[in-house]
């Protein structure tokens, strides 16, 4: 029995753009992954609680509202506090290049912006989980 990759897809704050995250959810499901969607308007703490309870391999946060530089530090910090240091955090949506670099610097494993083909997202997640290894 091979366990499917588990992914939590989350939307944080006032950002109501959910088209992209739904496209990603379906693509990952069709690639054989178990996908949990948080729904809109969650807080960083709620997202971390859910990610830990669900023991996901990947926490993917979709952000098109421009607040990535406040949201991701909170999420990464909270994950560390709760001892979930082996969780892979990725980001998607719309954000400027300098933020992408900064996010990767602070520990976000990958940032996939608009027009990323679904297959590229699937391949990236599979690769990241394989690199992390068993847990």
């Amino acid at each position, binding site marked *: *029995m091979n366990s*499917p990759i588990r992914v939590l897809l989350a939307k944080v704050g006032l950002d109501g753009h959910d088209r992209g995250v739904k496209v990603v959810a*379906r693509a990952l499901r069709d690639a054989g992954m178990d996908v949990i*969607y948080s729904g809109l308007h969650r807080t960083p703490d*709620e997202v971390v609680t859910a990610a830990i*309870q669900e023991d996901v391999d990947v926490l993917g946060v979709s952000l098109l509202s421009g607040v990535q530089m406040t949201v991701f530090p909170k999420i990464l910090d909270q994950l560390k506090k709760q*001892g979930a240091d082996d969780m892979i955090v990725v980001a998607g949506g719309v954000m400027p290049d300098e933020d992408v670099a900064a996010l990767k610097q602070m520990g976000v494993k990958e940032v996939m912006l608009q027009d990323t083909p679904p297959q590229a997202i699937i391949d990236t997640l599979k690769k990241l989980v394989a690199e992390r290894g068993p847990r």
Partner: protein
Amino acid sequence: MSRAVASVALVDRVQAGEPAAIARLISRAESGAAEVHEALARIYKLAGAAHVIGLTGVPGSGKSTLVGKLTEKLRAKGAKVGIVAIDPSSPYSGGAILGDRIRMSDMANDPGVYIRSMATRGATGGMARAALDAVDILDVAGFDTVILETVGVGQDEVEIVRASHTTIVVSAPGLGDEIQAIKAGILEIADIHVVSKCDRSDANRTLIDLKQMLTLGLRAAAKSAWQLPVVGTSTVSGQGIDELIVAIEQHRRFGLESEAGQQRRLAIAQFRLRKTADNLLLDRFGAAIARASAPLAAKLMRREADPYSLANELLNSSLLREPDHEQDPRSKIA
């Protein structure tokens, strides 16, 4: 959490209620790897305090929303609530979108509530065994009430909720058939019936139909046995939620005090043993049988042999050989 931690080492941490340890042990249970058996054996012996509520009904009948509201009320009374929410996997990709959690998001940050989503993973995925292991893990972690939500279609999904102490079947108005539970064949398993969405004008008809059907003796109740309650609820107005909690508490006590309750617990244990044995059998010999059967298929195709004799031969030879040591690489201890 460190990747190298052995499952048995998680048991104490589960008992202490550590969320990450609970989460990881449930994942290991889902993987079904042999490494987790000892930990689960210890969990089983430590468990048994929680009241387990199974909740089922056709898709969209309002189960998750109801579980959310029930949980809020139970929390207000001081209970800690664990939830295992099961959604179907896609038969095509094997993947799943697990959407129950969204409807329970009001308690997203309450440490007294633990929500875990699970996918069915097809008939041989061991979902029933893993779901009941997850219930025990939450029990040991100190959750006094554990609620299992499954869609009331598919044998495993229905059997799981039957393996709870109190089974609730949810019917909703406006989903086509007046009482969809009949069509799904799940009306008989209820200890408590709920008609959801009673804020809708057509709910009364569903309530009346259901009550009528029950008095017609669909489930002929002996005098001393449990009187099947029918509760109308609305998660919009809050109607019926308190009444449902009273019914659940009454059924919990009935289960502890009656001969029927004793029988029920014995049946649950039997189911549990059978599911676990089924899984172990598949784990050990499934791969070997699949491998050995491939070269025999040609014989079968040419009708030089019949499937019964070949299957018997296969079983005899596979069962005699050493079990397969292949296991899920992701759950192997690094």
